[in-house]
């Protein structure tokens, strides 16, 4: 299955590749390398350069010249440090929630439904189905669901969970809800890909060796599906950290829920290009550090 791409199990052919023919490999790699240089390396270099620019001589809005103005970074940290913390808090929470929801779902599809291939395909389609509707539309739909006069708020007010003046839209709750909801398929599919190939004979062997259901899960099922869990959390956490839709005040957020992505967006459209670029770089570095630490800790060469 295509989802297998997330979980890398392919045979390692590198050792078998004949050394003499390496130029063929280079030629075959060239389009990909060129594409990567044009669409990733060049913009990244440009981004770094932009982040050090300073305002141009005639101080017109949006006029900047190349320089080494590291104060852009100081300003970004000073003004948006709190927003960075919030960004990671929201993303982390959304990732954990998505994991807690997705793992049982992926287990159900990949293991429980294994003997019913038709049901398996059907449920898998249900997981992917939301992708057929625009991401923006779906998020707007949730905004309507959580609207102040909407059914959810009315219900929660009627049972006394929310006070008569309370609301949901624009709170941390709706933003985290939106992030969780939007990234669940990215969590579910890689975990499904791992669990779908889980050899149940290991689980049987665990039972034979005195492991109860909980021990079988923690010591056998979870470790064997760890590659999928790592892929899924990365595929959720990284884009969630850069997300600027859910937290935007036009969707599920408000000025109290601004995330780093919104800051980049706002600064850019207000023509503060260097500041916007500096926030981007900071966000990238801030994501890379925990991600590298996580991948290194969750073990192993098998994941990368």
């Amino acid at each position, binding site marked *: 299955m295509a989802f297998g791409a997330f979980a890398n199990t392919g045979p390692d052919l590198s050792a078998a590749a004949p050394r003499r023919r390496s130029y063929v490999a280079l030629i075959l790699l060239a389009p990909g390398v060129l594409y990567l240089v044009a669409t990733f390396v060049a913009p990244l270099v440009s981004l770094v350069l932009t982040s050090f620019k300073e305002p141009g001589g005639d101080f017109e809005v949006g006029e900047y010249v190349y320089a080494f103005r590291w104060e852009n970074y100081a300003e970004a940290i000073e003004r948006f440090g709190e927003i960075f913390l919030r960004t990671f808090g929201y993303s982390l929470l959304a990732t954990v929630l998505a994991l807690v929801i997705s793992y049982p779902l992926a287990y159900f599809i990949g293991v429980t439904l294994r003997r019913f291939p038709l049901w398996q395909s059907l449920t898998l389609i249900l997981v992917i189905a939301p992708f057929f509707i625009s991401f923006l539309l779906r998020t707007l739909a949730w905004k309507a669901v959580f609207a102040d006069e909407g059914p959810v708020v009315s219900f929660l007010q009627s049972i006394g969970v929310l006070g008569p003046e309370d609301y949901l839209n624009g709170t941390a709750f709706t933003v985290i809800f939106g992030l969780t909801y939007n990234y669940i398929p990215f969590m579910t599919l890689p975990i499904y890909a791992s669990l779908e190939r889980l050899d149940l*004979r290991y689980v049987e062997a665990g039972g*034979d*060796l005195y492991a*109860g259901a909980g021990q079988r899960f923690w010591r056998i099922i979870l470790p*064997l599906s760890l590659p999928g869990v790592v892929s899924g959390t990365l595929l959720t956490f990284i884009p969630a950290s850069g997300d600027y839709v859910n937290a935007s005040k036009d969707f599920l957020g408000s000025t109290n829920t601004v995330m780093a992505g919104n800051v980049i967006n706002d600064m850019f459209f207000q023509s503060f290009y260097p500041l916007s670029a500096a926030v981007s770089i900071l966000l990238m570095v801030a994501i890379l550090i925990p991600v590298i630490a996580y991948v290194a800790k969750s073990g192993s060469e098998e994941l990368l």
Partner: protein
Amino acid sequence: MAGSFDESGADLELVGVTKRFPGFTAIENLNLTIPAGSFFALLGPSGCGKTTTLRLVAGLEAPTAGRILIGGKEVTATKPHQRPVNTVFQSYALFPHMTVLANVEFGLKRRGIANALALAHEALRLVELDHVASRRPSQLSGGQQQRVALARAVVNRPALLLLDEPLGALDLKLRRQMQLELKSIQGEVGLTFLHVTHDQEEAMTMADTVAVMNKGRIEQMGAPEELYELPRTTFVANFLGQSNLFTGEVVESGSDAVTVDIAGLGIKVPRERAQRHAGEVTIGVRPEKLTLHTRKPDTAAGVNILGPGVIIDASFTGVSTQYLVQVPGLPVITVFAQNMAFGPVAEQGAEVWVSWRVEHGFGLADEPEPEARFAADDDTRTIAVQRRQRLEDELDEA
């Protein structure tokens, strides 16, 4: 149970166990008692229900009817991890994400046994693999993996050790070696072993008691020599080694022998070695018990003679030569002749007689069928069962 070992092996008792899967019955009313400390082999072709029996004992399947008792205690309703039973799986099922040592320690730790590490090392020393304790199972050869699987099961000192064709994936030489090792380990640790196999030679070399299973039932059970020398059914006679079987009418039922009319000749079988003493019966004799004669031998008391016949094939197999002899009106007779002298004793096409001592013959219990050697297997039910078995085998492999 947690934190302690069983003192020794325990009896296994199956009482009226039946297992039905949708559309077919794997095991029909099976009654079986395996005494503590014995090495018991369940022998049968694929699809005979032997692996299902093992899985029922391990708790990986629940019986449709009947009871399972281990050491006198009923375990029918308990979960696998609650049974004092360990299995060496056909696929080994070593946990790929753990080291060899962690695999062996796994069961001990789950039971909270104090010196798990020391015991695990001891078990690895028993199978001579302590030096690879820190490797992953995938870094070991098939034979080594098999021994790790054995250590992982034996280290728990289960009351009952189940072996599910654990030697199936090994090559012949390694298999022989492992058979001997298994046997000696069983002697050392004194556990009850239940070994499932389709390899009759493996069953006979290793087990104290062999039960031959066919179509969900035990056809015959006993010591290997006993089963081989005195098979009671056609299936056992053909599955456990080779047999020459003849069908005929009993013409005389004496006090010490029954005489059966085979192609017009009176063939005697000792009365106590014949299951049936009247009507149409099937009698048999093992190929190595037959003697080949190039001249008609003199009639003597206590010897059966068939012939004349023609050698239609002679194949040299090293220790012996296998002759196929066609006697008119009889199925082809197989003769194993020890190679005591150089070259074949008789050429293909030669006219020969075969003889055997009366006490080597045996009489079978089954009703003779029109084709004595093979049962018809082309009815829809059999095809369905075979198809199911193939699918299950594929699933097992996948």
